């Protein structure tokens, strides 16, 4: 085995230094009847070239040469090549949680930068070192709102990503939380007339842009929530939108969670991604997850440490703010390098390209006979089109033309069987968009 440095002879010599002859003697604490006498059942070791070839064959069975208009929580964006180059430095990827700050200043400083960038984009006061992803981040936000308000009722817009809602349900079902879904209007945004916030409501939970791509009126939602002493929790699956959209913090949100995948993280069939989590300073003590803070050493030199750890499970155990232990370290680094490379202007330019291309596509599609935009609210890079046939069948037909046309909404919203969720990012060329429109017209 090439990953084990010591030769069999060296290992025998080490055993001998312990006064042992056979390696099996080290396992005598395991009762003999529990020990295996045969192989595990994986098979023989596979050599490096054979294994790479095998994985290449498998990967070739996955469609990545199709023109895709899939979004719905995972987005295709250009990824600067320097990200992979930098995260491949093994001082980053073979290190662990920065428990010893003197040997981990690299990790600690980039996490501090990451926290700052998340605050800048979301308009919030404080952000943690990341959570697993957007969906679990939202579940954590809901549990946090329950702790902050000591209330148990949650009003969750039915335009929050359906898979996020499923995760929230799993996390909250045994904690006495009552979850109610709030419907949407013809505009595609939350129906204020069925939003009944009362003194038991812990939080109003919305996504913006929402699952249909529509932008919610966060300022009005914040006012409505705050009036009843409830919090506004905002989920963002497409944080690139923050390059042009008003930040949820400036609109009055109390907790903001976002899926950081758009910031330089490969689609990778759904993970690993990086959950962004930000809140108001006054709720800091109730926030889950790791935090890095600035301080000085005994010579007065600036440095960074993990801080406010008393919120966490390794100290507070069953009273911790969360069971989360790891953050998404390396993927927080990817997001940090992305935002550093794109910078203030690049994030804005990418966001504007998404905005313009999506509107170009939406305009062209809605001019087709029988097609229309389903909702009237403003959108960023995703929108729902209504078509004169089943959207599920339409996506099947498009696959024949090597186009993945989007998400047929029927699987999440059974009454929307004629509706397709389309996402257009900066990676779609005008030609690809035109081909897509053409293919739709010929269905």
């Amino acid at each position, binding site marked *: 085995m090439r990953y084990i440095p010591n030769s069999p002879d060296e290992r025998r010599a080490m055993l001998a230094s312990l006064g042992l002859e056979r390696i099996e003697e080290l396992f005598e604490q395991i009762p003999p009847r529990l020990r295996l006498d045969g192989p595990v059942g994986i098979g023989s070791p596979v050599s490096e070239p054979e294994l790479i070839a095998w994985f290449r064959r498998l990967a070739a069975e996955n469609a990545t040469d199709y023109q895709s208009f899939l979004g719905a929580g995972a987005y295709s964006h250009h990824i600067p090549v320097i990200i992979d180059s930098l995260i491949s430095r093994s001082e980053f990827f073979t290190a662990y949680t920065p428990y010893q700050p003197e040997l981990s200043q690299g990790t600690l400083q980039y996490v501090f930068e990451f926290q700052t960038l998340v605050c800048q984009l979301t308009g919030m006061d404080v952000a943690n070192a990341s959570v697993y992803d957007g969906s679990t981040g939202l579940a954590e936000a809901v549990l946090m709102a329950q702790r902050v308000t000591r209330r148990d009722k949650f009003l969750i817009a039915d335009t929050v990503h359906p898979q996020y809602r499923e995760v929230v349900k799993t996390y909250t079902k045994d904690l006495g939380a009552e979850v109610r879904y709030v419907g949407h209007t013809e505009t595609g945004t939350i129906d204020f007339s069925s939003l009944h916030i009362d003194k038991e409501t812990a939080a109003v939970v919305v996504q913006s842009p929402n699952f249909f791509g529509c932008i919610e009126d966060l300022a009005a939602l914040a006012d409505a929530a705050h009036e009843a002493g409830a919090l506004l929790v905002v989920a963002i699956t497409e944080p690139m939108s923050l390059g042009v959209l008003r930040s949820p913090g400036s609109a009055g949100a109390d907790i903001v969670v976002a899926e950081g995948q758009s910031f330089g993280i490969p689609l990778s069939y759904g993970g690993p991604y990086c959950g962004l989590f930000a809140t108001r300073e006054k709720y800091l*003590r109730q926030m889950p997850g790791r935090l890095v803070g600035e301080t000085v050493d005994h010579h007065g030199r600036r440095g960074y440490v993990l801080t406010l*750890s*008393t919120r966490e499970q390794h*100290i*507070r155990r069953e*009273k911790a703010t969360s069971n989360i232990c790891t953050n998404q370290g390396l993927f927080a680094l990817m997001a940090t390098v992305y935002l550093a490379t794109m910078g203030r202007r690049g994030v804005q330019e990418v966001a504007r390209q998404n905005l313009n291309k999506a509107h170009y596509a939406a305009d062209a599609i809605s001019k087709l006979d029988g097609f229309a935009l389903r909702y009237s609210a403003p959108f960023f890079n995703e929108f729902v089109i209504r078509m004169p046939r089943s959207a599920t069948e339409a996506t099947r037909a498009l696959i024949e033309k090597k186009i993945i046309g989007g998400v047929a909404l029927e699987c999440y919203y059974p009454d929307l069987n004629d509706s397709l969720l389309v996402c257009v990012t900066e990676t779609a060329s005008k030609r690809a968009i035109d081909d897509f429109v053409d293919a739709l017209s010929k269905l």
Partner: protein
Amino acid sequence: MANTPEELSYTKDHEWVRVKGDSATIGITDHAQNQLGDVVYVELPKVGEKFESGEPFGSVESVKAVSEIYMPLGGEVTEMNAALADSPELVNEDPYGKGWMIELKIADSSEIDGLLSAAEYEDYLKEEASE
């Protein structure tokens, strides 16, 4: 050796109590702050909250530990030391003075008899140390 003022009463959870009429001031002992190390955060209840004796009413945090603080006597919180929010180090520097935590209106004055005297508390500390 920890400082244990004669005029105060104590609990086995290392709180001190200064009784004045039907009100009592509460904090943690010099021994407790010493064991905890540098205090970085003190969580206190709001004025008006009511607690039974023995109930946790807040917590004291050092960098790597959290200790709950328990009510020596039942009653309603009438005042809390707001200065601790910005200066938690007062608990270390002056545990019996500026590091006080809450003041309460005693619900049942008969509970006072259950508290330890300074001598009893010191004996208790010796007992604990020998274990």
